[in-house]
């Protein structure tokens, strides 16, 4: 239930809306339990319901995902990596390196178009396969892959200064 609540919270950004969505998800799961195929992933099924409720009741702007130019994004991403200042080593964070969620990180995630945010949360946070995430978001696997592709690049660009500031990305010794 915590995973569902967190997903809803990241989507709506309001704790009360998130609680309502999770409650509605369980109610709908109960009413449509006959549709659940035994042997399939129950968690993925619940997320499919959750996302469907979110899209129908809470989604505000369905077209925002189309405003991102892939060419522009790719250019900025590779320009950043090619910058001589970015001859860096990337250090994977450990849990002990931070104890709480930082506002900058929440802000970066919130800036992603909603479809991209959902893709990243399902695959990178919930550990869903592309197929499970695509089913939950009711889109083809290719679309899911493309959203992830863009979302991670956008997140990297949003987070780079913050990450460098607190030392998660360290420049190697000369």
């Amino acid at each position, binding site marked *: 239930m915590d995973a569902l609540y967190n997903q809803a919270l990241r989507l709506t950004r309001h704790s009360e809306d998130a609680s309502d969505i999770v409650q509605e998800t369980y109610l709908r799961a109960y009413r449509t339990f006959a549709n659940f195929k035994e042997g399939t992933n129950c968690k993925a099924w619940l997320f499919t319901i959750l996302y469907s409720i979110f899209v129908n009741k809470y989604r505000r702007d369905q077209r925002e995902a189309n405003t991102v130019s892939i060419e522009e994004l790719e250019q900025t991403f590779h320009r950043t990596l090619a910058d001589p200042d970015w001859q860096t080593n990337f250090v994977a964070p450990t849990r002990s390196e931070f*104890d709480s969620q930082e506002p900058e990180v929440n802000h970066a995630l919130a800036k992603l178009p909603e479809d991209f945010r959902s893709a990243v949360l399902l695959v990178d946070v919930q550990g869903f396969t592309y197929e499970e995430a695509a089913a939950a978001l009711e889109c083809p696997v290719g679309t899911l892959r493309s959203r992830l592709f863009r979302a*991670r690049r956008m997140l990297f660009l949003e987070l780079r200064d913050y990450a460098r500031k607190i030392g998660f990305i360290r420049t190697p010794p000369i």
Partner: protein
Amino acid sequence: MPTSPKHFKDEIQDLLDNRLDARTRAEVERHVEACTECRREFEALRWTKSFVAKQFAAKAAPSELRENILRALETDAGGARTITLRPGFQMRKLKPIMTWAAALVALGILALILIPKQRSLTHVVARDFRSYQSEKLTLELNTPDAKKMEAFFARHGLPFTPHVYDLSAKDYRLVGGRVQYLQGRRTEWVVYGGPNNEALVCQMYVGNVSELPIGSVEREHRGKKFRMYQVKGVTMVFWQDRKVVCVLISDMPAENVVQLAFAKAPPL
């Protein structure tokens, strides 16, 4: 630039998400190792994936949400159902049975969904303590005032008269507390900070120590029996106080927890 044909693009993402067959994977890995641009891209994306996964790891949902869901399911299950019966059948007699049956089915489904793996009570108690230490479990009220803490629990309708121990004579100051669910029961869950900042939790719930699993060490003090468990470095000392089970939980040396329990548990 990386868009040139000799560089990989989609394959780097597939490598990151472990979606390549062994042959392609070896080929992409060889390239990423040799090509600075692709390696940098792979490392940047891997860092982002790892960072996001750790930063957005699930936090606990509000404690009242589970109860609200349960209530909504019960209401939904007991709500109107259109059933055609032969003339003369007394629907009035059947309705309460159907309501209960539907509620039971709803509870069963909820249990299947919410409790994929049933753990023993002592494991759940120890896990909650560790969740608090790793800040996955947060307090609903932070206060050093035992009376305020008791008033908080009274407002939240625990099925027993709340009581918060004053441990200041033992150098343990009250930090705060929350209503914590323990296998479907609403419990009083209070945190103290020790002289060296060690965490100590006192949890109380309606129940009986006879429900606890086997494997405890039995201790006796002033005619009262205590049951001590240790799970993954967490010591728990349980005792019965009328209809309430009390437990002290900490990862400090076990004997310290036992002595605190001896000091605070009311004698028989």
